[in-house]
Each structure stands twice: as structure tokens, then as C-alpha cells.
């Protein structure tokens, strides 16, 4: 009997042959022990690869991924309206459309970069890390909301061991911005930078930026843009970003 075709050998390894074809390959393998050994090894590879990677399917999907699907899914009418508006504007002015990359770039300059600078400037501050301390949290939120012109709340990060120290008002690129500072038991600090976004900006999923070695996660939710900065491992900072998002959502629903 001739050697089975390459495709049949793989199909045999992968259990995809009909029974008579399978018997034909098995018969051939009985007389070709070297090939039989190779094929048994290939089957072990498959078993091993599934053992390695099937557990990923059981993991809970990170918020940032399920969020990206949901955010886009619920914003369809708005997105269509915006696309039509852009299109007509583009036709009138004779310009092309602005793509996603340009809006992403603009977040880097309006949100990520100032957030990183504010983090680097204020987080090492020992005596005056904040303008208004956490003990006046209600006043802090009220004051910053008024100055930014949009509701500003400090997320609760205590479940991750980070206590709110307080906040301060900052100059943004066009208007005011705010910074909240948090500290954990070992003195590590993270800051959350908040600015009011133009009402036309759509919500985004969590995005990551590396500002000269400083990790920053940023996202836009409704009227506010957020950037969380910290000299922390990326995974830990992402966890804090997700926690911030959930906490802000809970507080705003109250």
C-alpha cells in the first residue's frame, strides 16, 4: 500500500478521517513503525497544546475587552449620526475624514501627556501632595465639579489597598483639570487625572500608554476623560483602572 497523502496523515492525527480512511491509514502504520511513532508524538503535541491553552477559555474576560464590545454596541445611533455629520462637514470643507488614529493621538496630547507630567510633579511631594485632603472629600468633589464644569468624583480604591489622599485643581490644555492622589500601605502613589471631554467624543475602552517609563491607563466615559498614572506593574495599574471605572460608575448611579 502506498504512503497516505500528507493531508490524510494530518487528518488522521487530528481525528478528522472517516472510518474507512482511518482504517486504511492505521493499516499502513502497522507496517511503518517509524511513521507510527512520529504520528503518536504529533498527537501528544496536540494534547499538550490543548492542556496549555484551553484554560484561557475558562478565565474571566477582562473588563476592558468586554467593555470595548459593549461600548461600541450601545453607541450605534450616535456613531452613525457622528459619521454623517463628519461626512457632510468633510464634503462642505473638502477635507478628508478624520480617522481613529488622530483621535487617539489627540488623547495622548490632551490627556495622557498632561496626566503624566502632573503625576511626576506632584506624586513625590511630601508636605503638600494635595490641595484639599481626603477628609474634605465632599467639598473636594463639589469644588472640582464646579471648576471643570462636569461631575467629578473620586473613585474608591480601598479594596486594592489604595487610600485617597486628596486632590488638586490643575491647568488643562484649554480648561481646568483635576488630579486625585492615592497611596498604599507601602507609600506607592497613583494619580487619576480628570478632564472634561468635548461632548462629541465617544467613549473608549481602556488604553495603555507608556509615557517615558511611566505607565498610564486612560479612557473616556461620557463627559470626562480619565488617565491613571503610576509607577506600578502594568497589570496592577490595569486592575486599579478597572476598579476606578467600576467605582465611578457605581457612584454616578447613586
Amino acid at each position, binding site marked *: 500500500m502506498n504512503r497516505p497523502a*500528507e*493531508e490524510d496523515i*494530518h*487528518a488522521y*492525527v*487530528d481525528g*478528522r478521517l472517516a472510518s474507512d480512511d482511518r482504517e486504511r491509514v492505521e493499516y499502513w502504520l502497522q507496517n511503518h513503525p517509524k511513521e507510527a511513532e*512520529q504520528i503518536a*508524538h*504529533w498527537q*501528544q*503535541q*496536540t*494534547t*499538550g*497544546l*490543548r*492542556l*496549555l*491553552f*484551553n*484554560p*484561557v*477559555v*475558562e*478565565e474571566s*474576560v*477582562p473588563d*476592558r*475587552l*468586554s467593555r*470595548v*464590545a*459593549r461600548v*461600541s*454596541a450601545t453607541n*450605534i445611533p450616535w456613531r452613525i449620526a457622528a459619521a454623517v455629520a463628519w461626512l457632510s462637514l468633510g464634503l462642505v470643507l473638502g477635507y478628508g475624514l478624520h480617522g*481613529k488614529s488622530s483621535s487617539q493621538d489627540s488623547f495622548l496630547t490632551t490627556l495622557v501627556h498632561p496626566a503624566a507630567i502632573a503625576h511626576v510633579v506632584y506624586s513625590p511631594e511630601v508636605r503638600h501632595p494635595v490641595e484639599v485632603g481626603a477628609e474634605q472629600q465632599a467639598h473636594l468633589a463639589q469644588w472640582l465639579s464646579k471648576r471643570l464644569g462636569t461631575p467629578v468624583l473620586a473613585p474608591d480604591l480601598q479594596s486594592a489597598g489604595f487610600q485617597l489622599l486628596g486632590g488638586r485643581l490643575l491647568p488643562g490644555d484649554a480648561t481646568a483639570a483635576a488630579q486625585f492622589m492615592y497611596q498604599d500601605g507601602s507609600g506607592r502613589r497613583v494619580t487619576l487625572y480628570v478632564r472634561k471631554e468635548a461632548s462629541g467624543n465617544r467613549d473608549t*475602552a481602556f488604553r*495603555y500608554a507608556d509615557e517615558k517609563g511611566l505607565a498610564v491607563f486612560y479612557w473616556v466615559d461620557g463627559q470626562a476623560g480619565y488617565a491613571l498614572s503610576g509607577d506600578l506593574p*502594568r*497589570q496592577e495599574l490595569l486592575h486599579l483602572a478597572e476598579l476606578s471605572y467600576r467605582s465611578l460608575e457605581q457612584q454616578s448611579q447613586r
Partner: protein
Amino acid sequence: MLSREAILDHLPRLRRYARALTGDRFAADDLVQDTVERALSRWALLRPGSNPQVWLLTLMHNHFVNQKRSARERLEQTTVDGILPELEVRSEQGDGLALQDLAAALYCLSEEHRSVLLLVAVEEMTYEECARILGVPIGTVMSRLTRARQKLARILAGEESLDVKGVKLEVVK
């Protein structure tokens, strides 16, 4: 026609393929995120009756390849370390191959070989689906699959040295 929310159901399997392909948890989830964003902006292009999983994997594959092309000058971030802690536990299950060795060997394969092997063995795609995802003829799928399986076996048998991005590792026997 599939609803856009249905993409949520595909996330766990997209994460599996991305994790296996990149060997890095963060790079994998970034890849999934980019794929989902692309998919949502092109949802109208998904033809009725076609398999959304195949379509999503095609988008992911194309994005992965383009990303690699544009980032070729950068040092590759693929590390085996990121997945090793989980592996140690499972290697006690007494399967035929030591899983750590298998994982290390997997990332010594070229991306062409790794992707076809993972699509067939882990994602259980048909050979025709692999051809569509990878954008190559089915004959190429079969020959790459043969070379991937042979090379993996040779690495695991210690006949080829482990060479992860220029770092020589010794095969643990």
C-alpha cells in the same frame, strides 16, 4: 445576521488563540482588543452565513502580521516566562510531554509554523478554514503543518537547540 453583542461570546476563544500566538498575556489582550475594534467597525462586511469565528481569526491574524511587520526593528516581546507559572502546576498531570518544554519549543517555531499548528490543534479549525484565515492555499497549510509538527518534535527530542530570539536555552530532559 449576527448581533454585535454576539462578539462577547467569541472573546474567550479569541483570547486563547491570541495568548497562544503571542505567549504574553498583555500583548494577547491588546491583540484581542484591536481585533474587536476592527471587527465592530467592519461588522457590515461579515457575509451572512459565514463563520464569525473564522472571520474574527482572519482579522486577528492580519493585524498580528501587520503589527509584526511594522515593529520588526523593535526587539520582540515574546517571552515564555509569562505563561510558565501556570504550566508548572499542570505538568504534574503526567501527560506524555513536559508542558514547559512544549511551551518553550512552541515559541522557537516561526510565526508561520506556530499559527498553523495552533489553528489546527487548539482552535480545531478545518484545513480550509486555516487557508482562509492565513490567506494561503491549502497546500501551503498542509506543508507548513508538516514542518511545524516535525520541527516541534525535533526541538523536544533535543535534536535542535532551543533558540528563543537569540537566547540559547538548554532543553530540560
